[in-house]
């Protein structure tokens, strides 16, 4: 009896204690509700309003939408595949249509696991709770946050229908890779509207919100498929689909659309454009303003640029004996500019955007090497009264510099060829003649010319500037050479033609304004020398690769072979190509012979130009009035002996040149006669 009494005593005590505890708990929870309710976030009414933020759209000049930023475009439930709706409900909250914001049994089970099975955690958030969390709360994991989230979920349930809640949920949920909302996810991963998702695709997407990074199908496709299969099993378990349909769906491997990778823009051009927009309008307008940006990008040229750089880098890898997977691999950059306006038509900032977002086309300042010589030659022709037939001697040169060691530039071939006309000197990129010219013009004249043409990077006033020892970007080089292409009219490079607000009202537009910065006749003389570089000189690889249109350009290779450039232009398009390693490393054939701009960058340039201009009529460079052409002996600078016909042997030292001369310039007025 005593035992019975004890049991009774304990039972009774427990009962009343439990009762008291329940009472206290009820009071505490009630108080908590009142306290927490004060600074709970206000829930927008109607709920749909919260996801109606217009997105900023970026368009190519050819009309295609390049990308969207921020914002969300909600789709009604009726425009979403029922497979997806079934899958997401089965996976995330199969009692969604029954509960009122809280799945109590699942919560109790989760509580039990959390309390009594250390190390194991089970989630019990309903779709409404997840919606509340995503809309109002940070991802900080605290009990108080959880409680507040629950209260908001109750309010959402009390004021919205299940359809409204599900609509809000599927339109704001994150699927990873920058896709927020089912429509964007469907477009991003499969390139189709959400209404067209089949069971395999829908179940794959429904599995992503659990861990968008871990299950990102672009990066972990098999893991995403495994998760997809779990979703399908859940769908069978809750009776949303038949087991047979699930089995069939499990056997499919949904095709992802190519080259999306993740949330990033996937484009060096768009990155550069967004940076410009943010600088001008601020992040709020760019990411939340729903503006429409009409860019200068030509998708056909961009595809050609991507292809040419990829192909050129593979060829470079092979030349260097590198294999995929070796690290580091050389990088490349390309910028193409419309000479008539300055519009940037294509931009490649590296080998693979998804490996490195560093945009070498606009952010990387690399030494252009001999690619800088056209600025020197212009300065020399302009300031010293020389002409392309003026003769200088290729000989050892020592330039004395106050307070510093003498400068003794060497030729690439380490030998001296004696007297030659300036056109010959630029064609074969003779460093000693460049040194003699810069000694006479002074480095300031070269800098002045480069800056007039559009070089904006800081340039040091040193003699070696003539040989391109100051870093510049491919964008600057393409833009500066574009000034030569237009006979001295400079157009500022730009990426955006027009910006409109969400209602189509223009808030900014670019006026393609040219400014004469160089003398047209002298510029034409320099262009003629640069044509010779492409036809007969260090850039002749361009011709060997089958690019036959009128073109001018200049190769550039740094002493250490760290940088290999080719910048060239036709009358309509100016393109700069750089190749090299991000860190100082020599471009060399299997570690031995250095690779020049003519071998590494010129083929990329030629490949791109062939594709870019294939549907355009051929145009020649306009000849300014007052220019006449004369045949000249490249050694004497005088009229050639004999009939004066132009030589065809590219390797002949005595090939006859045709040089453009201004009205007051005559032959045989050479600087130095051999």
């Amino acid at each position, binding site marked *: *009896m005593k035992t*019975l*009494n004890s049991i*009774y*005593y304990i039972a*009774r005590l427990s009962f009343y204690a439990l*009762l008291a505890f329940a009472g206290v708990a009820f009071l505490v929870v009630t108080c908590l*509700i009142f306290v927490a*309710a004060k*600074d*709970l*976030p*206000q*829930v*927008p*009414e109607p709920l749909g309003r*919260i996801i109606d*933020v*217009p997105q900023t759209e970026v368009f190519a000049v050819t009309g295609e939408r390049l990308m969207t930023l921020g*914002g969300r475009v909600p789709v009604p439930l009726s425009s979403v595949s029922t497979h997806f709706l079934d899958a997401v409900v089965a996976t995330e909250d199969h009692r969604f249509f029954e*509960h*009122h*914001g*809280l799945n*109590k049994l699942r919560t109790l089970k989760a509580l039990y696991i959390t309390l009594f099975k250390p190390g194991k955690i089970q989630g019990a958030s309903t779709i409404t709770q997840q919606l509340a969390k*995503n*809309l*109002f*709360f*940070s991802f900080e994991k605290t009990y108080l946050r959880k409680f507040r989230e629950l*209260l*908001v979920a*109750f*309010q*959402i*349930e*009390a*004021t919205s229908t299940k359809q409204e809640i599900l609509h809000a949920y599927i339109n704001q949920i994150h699927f990873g890779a920058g896709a927020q909302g089912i429509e964007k996810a469907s477009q991003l991963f499969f390139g189709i509207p959400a209404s067209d998702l089949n069971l395999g695709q829908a179940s794959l997407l429904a599995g992503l919100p659990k861990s968008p990074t871990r299950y990102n199908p672009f990066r972990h496709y098999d893991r995403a498929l495994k998760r997809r299969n779990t979703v399908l099993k859940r769908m069978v378990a809750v009776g949303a689909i038949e087991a047979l349909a699930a089995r069939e769906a499990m056997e499919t491997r949904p095709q992802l659309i190519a080259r999306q990778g993740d949330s990033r823009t996937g484009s060096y051009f768009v990155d550069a454009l967004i940076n410009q927009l943010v600088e001008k*309008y*601020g992040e*709020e*307008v760019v*990411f*939340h*303003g*729903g*503006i429409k940006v009409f860019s200068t990008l030509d998708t056909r040229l961009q595809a050609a640029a991507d292809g040419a750089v990829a192909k050129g880098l593979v060829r470079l890898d092979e030349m260097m004996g590198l294999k995929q997977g070796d690290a580091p691999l050389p990088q490349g950059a390309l910028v193409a500019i419309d000479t*008539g*306006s300055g519009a940037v038509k294509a931009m490649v900032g590296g080998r693979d955007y998804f490996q490195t977002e560093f945009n070498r086309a606009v952010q990387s300042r690399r030494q252009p090497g001999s690619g800088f010589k056209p600025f020197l030659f212009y300065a020399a022709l302009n300031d010293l009264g020389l002409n392309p037939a003026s003769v200088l001697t290729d000989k050892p040169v020592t330039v004395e510099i106050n307070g510093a060691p003498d400068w003794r530039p060497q030729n690439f071939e380490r030998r001296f060829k004696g007297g030659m006309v300036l056109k010959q000197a630029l064609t074969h990129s003779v460093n000693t003649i460049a040194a003699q010219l810069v000694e006479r013009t002074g480095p300031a004249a070269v800098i002045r010319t480069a800056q007039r043409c559009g070089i904006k990077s800081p340039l040091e006033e040193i003699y070696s500037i003539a040989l391109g020892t100051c870093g510049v970007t491919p964008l600057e080089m393409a833009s500066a050479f574009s000034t030569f292409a237009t006979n001295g009219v400079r157009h500022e490079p730009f990426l955006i*033609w027009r910006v409109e*607000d*969400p209602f189509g*009202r223009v*808030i900014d*537009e*670019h*006026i*393609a*304004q*040219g400014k004469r910065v160089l003398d047209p006749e002298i510029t034409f003389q320099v262009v003629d020398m640069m044509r010779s570089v492409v036809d007969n000189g260090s850039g002749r690889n361009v011709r060997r690769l089958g690019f036959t249109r009128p073109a001018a350009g200049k190769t550039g290779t740094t002493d250490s072979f760290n940088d290999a450039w080719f910048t060239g232009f036709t009358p309509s398009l100016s393109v700069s190509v750089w190749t090299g390693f991000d860190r100082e490393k020599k471009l060399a054939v299997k570690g031995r012979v250095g690779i020049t701009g003519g071998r590494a960058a010129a083929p990329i340039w030629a490949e791109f130009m062939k594709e870019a201009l294939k549907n355009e009529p051929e145009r020649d460079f306009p000849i300014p009035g007052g220019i006449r052409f004369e045949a000249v002996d490249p050694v004497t600078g005088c009229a050639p002996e004999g009939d004066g016909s132009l030589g065809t042997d590219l390797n002949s030292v005595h090939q006859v040149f045709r040089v453009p001369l201004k009205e007051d310039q005559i032959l045989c007025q050479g600087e130095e006669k051999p």
Partner: protein
Amino acid sequence: MTQWYEPITVSEWLKRTLSFFNLLLLVALATLLFSEFRFDWGERLVGNYLASTNALRPEVGIVWKTGNQASRAHTALDSMVTERQDTARAVQGAATFAALSGIVLPGQWTSLDSDRFKELYLGLAPDVASELISPSELVWLFGSPGLTRIFCQGTPQGLEIYFLGSDNRVIRQLDLDHSFLSGLENQGASFSGKLEDIPGFAGRIFPADRFFNVLLALPKEVQPDLITTPELLLREKGTIVRAGIWNEAKSGYIRLGFEFQENGHTKIVFVRAREWAVWRLSMGLAKGDQ
């Protein structure tokens, strides 16, 4: 004594356990619990309570932050667009190029209706209009199919007007800098005072008779280029006592100042003269000095 909580028999124990109060409490609790599980009244109660206080609560959280950012972005965009529209409206009402430059401030831009431009241009004195752009070139510009619109932009230097072709490419650009614009305003304007008071005429002030003797000695075809707007001088009532030549040429023109005297009061009237004609005049005046 047996305590109330110590039943001595099983029947007593059962009786007490199944007492009315206990059963009622149990049933009440079970009903409460069951009904909550069945009808979710707790969630509804809390939800409805929170809905009733919704308007009083703060607009905080990610969604509100995003909403506010969007709202601020739209405000910023609206103000940009409104400014543009205001400028565009005001420009259509501008009566002169000088007024236009007062509307399109540095950093602002707007399109200019081609008829409006023509009106402004035709409102200029012929010599000034020619200085801005030759009438024949303007005829060619307006007649060419390439012209799509006229665009003007305020700059710190004054006003730039662009004639645009397709793709917003500039076909022709007119720079109306401050000195040109002030010249427009001063054209025909008078200045109370003497020529010495204006530093621009220093060292180049001549008695009127000498000035006109040299001028009239110049070939007949040169003279109209020196007094390009005689009406400005003819409408003055006083007598010209001296004339000055400005020390700076602008766009092929040099300003001349004529000092009028009337009832003891002196004033200067400015006119423009062709640079090359003024150069010939100056040569003649210089010869006189020798």
